């Protein structure tokens, strides 16, 4: 490469960067604009209910056994005859997921015999304290007024045609009805207490 070859190469380089300055930027202005994600996106967990308001979870602990990250703690208990929490004999007296340990693999969802634990597309879980990432039933269970929760199979099937396109939207993401809110109402932050105590 002689002198003129070098100058040509330089000119090409400068032309390239100059043209790039006018290209469309792929940046998504995240907090104000959010991207559509796949319907089967693995995000924050949710404990579903039946239509009559009873909890689906029967406290069988299969999710805890399936969990490769040991993130799930379930302590089952017998349903009291006058206060039945679930249709089965047992229910989850305590159900806690450590979202910092969780690898969002979805094996709990697969293991669950009653489709009680599902992964929602919510992903904005940032918080200030480690303790806040231990989600117990008060945050996992769908509140009665928010319906029953959606099974993964009932979400809009397939990958949306516009996946990857930017949805202009202020506020929170709206995947489908029932999955509207990243934060649903007032969330109780619970500290982890010793399981024995």
């Amino acid at each position, binding site marked *: 490469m002689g002198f003129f070859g070098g100058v040509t190469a330089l000119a090409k380089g400068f032309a390239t*960067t100059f043209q790039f*300055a006018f290209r469309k930027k*792929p940046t998504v202005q995240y907090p104000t604009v959010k991207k559509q994600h796949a319907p089967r996106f693995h995000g924050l967990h949710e404990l579903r209910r039946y239509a009559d308001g009873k909890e689906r979870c029967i406290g069988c602990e299969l999710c805890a056994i399936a969990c490769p990250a040991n993130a799930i703690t379930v302590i089952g208990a017998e349903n009291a005859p006058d206060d039945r929490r679930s249709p089965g004999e047992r229910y989850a007296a305590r159900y806690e997921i450590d979202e910092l340990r969780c690898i969002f693999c979805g094996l709990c969802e697969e293991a669950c015999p009653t489709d009680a634990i599902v992964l929602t597309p919510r992903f904005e879980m940032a918080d200030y304290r480690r303790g806040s990432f231990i989600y117990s039933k008060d945050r996992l269970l769908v509140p009665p007024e928010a319906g029953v929760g959606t099974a993964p199979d009932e979400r809009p099937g397939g990958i949306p045609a516009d996946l990857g396109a930017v949805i202009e939207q202020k506020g929170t993401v709206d995947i489908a009805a029932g999955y509207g809110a990243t934060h649903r109402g007032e969330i109780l932050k619970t500290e982890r207490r010793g399981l024995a105590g």
Partner: protein
Amino acid sequence: MLDQPWLVVLVKSVIVLFVVVTTFAYSMLFERKIMGWMQLRPGPNRVGPWGLLQPAADAAKMLFKEDLTPETADPLIYRLAPFISLVCAMGAFAVIPFSESSAGLWGVANVNAGILVIFALTSIGVYGISLAGWSSGSKYPLLGAVRSTAQMISYELAMTLSVIGVLILAGTTSLAGIVHAQYKLWFIAPQIVGFIIYIITAVAETNRAPFDLVEAETELVGGFHTEYSGLRFGLFFIAEYLNMITVSCIATLLFLGGWNAPFGLTFIPGIVWFVLKVGLFIFMYIWLRTTLPRLRYDRLMNFGWKVLLPVATLNLMVTAAIVALMG
């Protein structure tokens, strides 16, 4: 001694200082925006509309950061070094004429050897960088300082030689005089070689990419300012940008006819032309930074001594010969 009342000089200085520091702040934002666009990013856009308040946010951040001095550092020189850089960078603006009106020159002082004053000041500014690296008591800053010293010596020779060609043509060392000499023909035309050499050496003099071996963050962490934090780091930052603006101003004055309007467009005031021309150079700096990768150190030295210096010398000799023959 002064040809104007001291109060006038004071007011002029304050105005120039204010304008220059504002220019620094917004040329930084300009650089980040342009660089962002060229890298397919939007650039800063969170603070204020189009990120226009970003410089203020940066300044506030710098002010409130902790000012650290390493235990191994020489405390006095370590603390003094940023001020040497900054004072020299700011001092250069005292002799730069920005425009001219019937009332006189727009500038703090009209020195009849302005170009020499600027070169003297910017050369002293190198001490700021060298001393900062030396006094930090740490290896990366030291390497940065050694590089800066060698780089400055190598490139300042070629730079000065490239400028002498213009001085021969103009027959004066006064910046205003040089601009007046370009009333008919800008010196970029007869001195195109000198212009190219000046531009290349100016980039090296101001430690900007692709000649930013003094900072070379991929090799030397932060180069000479590795140990600096908070406001003292900010001062180096300001000094670097002010130097960039200074060399752009000199390039405008020496080669692009200063405030002279091109194509007879004299209805637009000279100051607008001056700012436009300086802006063009600053854009070129940014464009360079986004386009070219950093040179290897030995190649930088080879280029300086074996290419730029001989070509600049040749250019000077040819110019001198032609001026001597033409009368």
